[in-house]
């Protein structure tokens, strides 16, 4: 594959949608009865400020209790089959943060494609495996076999999740001296991990989504068979590779799968490729076979 220089491209309606979801999913702004729903965005699970349940935290909770998470898997599966990873591109507050951080002028590099596999390992090991093996089927009040603490929170993902640290941990620590006094090595290690991940996203576009997000890994399992997909018109595409350059997850690359309908696990359906395509009608997004967005050819390189 020919290497191309990444570009940010035009955001379009995606930015307002991301802001709206940031407001909707964080209780700093409003609170509602949303804790019943595991909306597939990375949102602090255990934090009281979250208006919805994080699917990753919920899956871990089920693993700790050694219960099969039928509801969580079914809910995520229905969304995944319907719209693939569109929530990653349009609604995830942590995705918005990564998009903003990548706009900081600095040295940029592209993570190797092999890094994509890491998120699947994190899903299996951190979210499901460790809680399932080490919890002994216990939940609140049980002793954590790694930290030895009687915390009742054996959520190993919560030890490293940068979204939880940013949305729940840092604001609470900043607001209360009493809480700061209670901070442990675990608190500071979480903050260190979050800073490291955010630093990486400044340099490598959507690097957390591509390599580290276990929720992205879970949604990627169904995105290949999603009813929402991209479609390239063979006759209209000039292979200028503008779509390749603006793709935040580097999901698009030549050849475009013989210019048929495409579905890849990494595509977050942000439609930046459609918005930035210079050829009218060459690239489109289709939901259930119906075109919902098509390149208008307004943007020229």
């Amino acid at each position, binding site marked *: 594959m020919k290497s191309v220089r990444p570009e940010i491209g035009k955001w379009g309606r995606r930015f307002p949608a991301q802001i709206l979801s940031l407001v909707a999913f964080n209780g700093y702004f409003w609170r509602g009865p949303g804790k019943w729903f595991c909306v597939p965005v990375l949102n602090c699970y255990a934090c009281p400020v979250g208006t919805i*349940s994080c699917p990753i935290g919920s899956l871990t909770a089920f693993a700790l209790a050694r219960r099969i998470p039928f509801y969580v898997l*079914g809910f995520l599966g229905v969304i995944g089959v319907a719209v693939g990873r569109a929530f990653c591109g349009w609604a995830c507050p942590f995705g918005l943060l990564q998009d903003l951080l990548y706009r900081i002028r600095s040295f940029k590099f592209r993570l190797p494609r092999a890094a994509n596999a890491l998120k699947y390992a994190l899903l299996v090991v951190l979210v499901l495996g460790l809680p399932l093996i080490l919890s002994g089927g216990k939940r609140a009040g049980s002793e954590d076999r790694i930290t030895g603490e009687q915390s009742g929170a054996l959520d190993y993902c919560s030890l490293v999740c940068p979204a939880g640290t940013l949305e729940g941990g840092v604001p609470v620590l900043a607001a209360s001296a009493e809480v700061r006094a209670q901070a442990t090595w*675990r608190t500071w290690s979480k903050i260190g991990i979050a800073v490291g991940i955010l630093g990486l996203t400044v340099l490598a576009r959507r690097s957390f989504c591509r390599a580290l997000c276990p929720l992205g890994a879970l949604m990627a399992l169904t995105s290949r068979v999603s009813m929402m997909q991209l479609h390239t018109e063979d006759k209209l595409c000039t292979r200028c590779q503008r779509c390749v350059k603006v793709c935040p997850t580097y999901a698009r690359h030549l050849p475009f799968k013989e210019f048929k309908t495409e579905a890849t696990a990494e595509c977050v359906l942000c439609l930046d490729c459609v918005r930035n395509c210079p050829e009218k009608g060459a690239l489109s997004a289709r939901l259930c076979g119906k075109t919902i967005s098509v390149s208008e050819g307004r943007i020229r390189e």
Partner: protein
Amino acid sequence: MSKRAWIVAAMLALLFAGLMAFGLSRGDAGYVRQNASENFCFS
């Protein structure tokens, strides 16, 4: 989407909807809500 892809997607959607309904019937949603409301893992 090809006809085959449609059938696969529809069957999967039905399967996941069935899983969700089964989970709801045994109180999974309440379990999710309870865990998400009670735990606070900033430490």
